[in-house]
């Protein structure tokens, strides 16, 4: 390869990295904004998200109401802002629960090996036979429809995916010499795992958690759309896509489309960021 070609390759690689970072920054900005709105949402809302006035039914954008009104004459922008809270909090809870259970299962399986590994593997295989949405529908039949029933059901359904990916990474890490060295020095298994093994697979954990957030957001919104998650009149993006359906059929799709767009934008941002985190690891 000529010197010229080397310079050109290096330059194009640098350009690609910089471009990648721009996308990552935009995605990060969108996610930060969504988190901020989730925390401050009701304070930012210019109007009471539940104040209805049927005189304003399906009225389009007017001064002070930039997105107009929904089927019950509630301010759409205020409901979107207020709805960010459950729409973001639910997936966050799923990610925390599923990652905790998945990491624990993966590290235990990798550390103990043998029958423990085989038993955990079988449990995960059986869990695989329950699609997340189906488990959430079952949970709503048992515990009644609520966001938390859906969160717990999805956490259980996602755990095997996390455990399977992390287990193979943990097995590779377990075989490293420094682990054997630490064992010889008398460090306890829990200490080695907490201090060395888990931190060393942390980049993979972060990438997995990011991708999981996107899946959880879509599935939770779907369950709320089915009427088995967050209950109306509470504002939530999934609920709004569903309550807006009446408007869609009458030719006023604003509510459904606006709430759907919020979900799609956050999910695209999270997925792109997750892919980038996954690639950087390699």
């Amino acid at each position: 390869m000529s010197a010229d070609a080397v310079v050109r390759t290096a330059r194009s690689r640098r350009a690609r990295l910089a471009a990648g970072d721009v996308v990552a920054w935009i995605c990060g900005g969108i996610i930060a904004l969504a988190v901020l709105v989730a925390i401050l949402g009701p304070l930012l809302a210019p109007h009471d998200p539940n104040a209805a006035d049927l005189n304003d039914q399906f009225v389009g954008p007017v001064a002070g109401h930039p997105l107009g009104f929904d089927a019950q004459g509630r301010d759409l922008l205020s409901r979107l802002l207020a709805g960010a809270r459950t729409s973001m909090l639910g997936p966050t809870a799923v990610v925390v629960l599923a990652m905790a259970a998945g990491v624990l299962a993966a590290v235990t399986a990798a550390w103990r090996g043998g029958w423990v590994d085989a038993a955990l593997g079988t449990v995960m295989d059986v869990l695989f036979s329950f699609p997340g949405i189906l488990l959430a529908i079952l949970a709503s039949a048992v515990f009644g429809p609520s966001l938390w029933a859906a969160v717990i059901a999805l956490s259980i359904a996602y755990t095997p995916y996390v455990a399977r990916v992390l287990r193979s990474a943990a097995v590779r890490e377990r075989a490293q010499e420094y682990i054997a060295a630490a064992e010889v020095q008398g460090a306890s298994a829990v200490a080695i795992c907490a201090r060395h093994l888990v931190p060393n697979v942390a980049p993979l954990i972060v990438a997995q958690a990011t991708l999981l957030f996107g899946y959880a957001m879509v599935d939770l919104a779907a369950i709320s759309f089915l009427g088995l998650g967050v209950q109306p009149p509470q504002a939530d993006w999934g609920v709004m896509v569903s309550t807006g359906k009446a408007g869609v059929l009458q030719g006023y799709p604003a509510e459904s489309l606006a709430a759907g767009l919020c979900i799609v934008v956050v999910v695209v941002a999270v997925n792109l960021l997750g892919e980038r985190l996954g690639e950087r690891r390699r």
Partner: protein
Amino acid sequence: MVAFVLRRLALLVVALLVSSFVIFAGLQLAPGDPLAALSGGRSLPPEALEALRAQYRLDDPFLVQYGNWLVHAVQGDLGQSIAQRHDVATIIGERIGVTAQLVALAAVIILVAGVGLGVLAGLRRGPVDAAVLVVTTLLAAIPSFVAAIVLMSVFAVQLGWFPAVGAGDGFADRLHHLVLPAIALAASALAIVARVTRASVREELEREHVETAVSRGLPRRLVLRRHVLRNAAIPIATVSGITILSLIALSAVVERAFGINGLGATLVQAAAAKDLALVQGISLVLVAAFVVGNTLVDLVYAVLDPRVTVGSRAA
């Protein structure tokens, strides 16, 4: 190969048994009296309650109830829907057809459009590839219910090309009704299949034996068919199978969006009404379809890729 198939079938039986137990036990734990749905809030005289408890065998020990339920389920008797006062098996029989048609149509869309786009993007670098990447990134992030609302709004309400709700009667009418729901159901799975197809075609193209074949002057068409697409077919078949299976549960969402009276929509209704026998019956059918499908995907994978069974014998 035989050992592999036997082990996979054993796993299938275990998965079916355990999941049927989970479905039964989970719903049996439901707080509240199963008779509440039946009495509809009225207070019945104690003798009537007693008779009903005996009729639905609510006083048997737990494992006996499970055993009875399973034996009857295997024989096609899934009990009575307490809310609809109908045979659960009859209700499932009436509703399963439209769900199967919906999933089948979505599967066709995924296989044609998803694999097609993926192969196209894999073989052609440049703008075609870039366009497919952007489109699939967006499609992958659009939840089925949002896709349903958008399609309904544009093609049913604004343009009036397709009906907005219902499933229609007769072949042509049914197809006309199911086009939008099937696209909504297929959209994000299609994107995943397209991306995996693109990646595996690209990977095969860069293999040494392909480069050798090209440099020896073999016709490009022959190289593509014999060496690129044939090897790429293994991951493509697997991911297509898995994503199509995931549509079984997702069909509930699309059916609700388009007001189609299929299995999934009935499950959601039954869950909201706490109609436990119906929830158990439909869940059992859906999970069984999913588990059996997964086994089939694994077996097909083993047939396509001899390394799988050879590896399992060595292990």
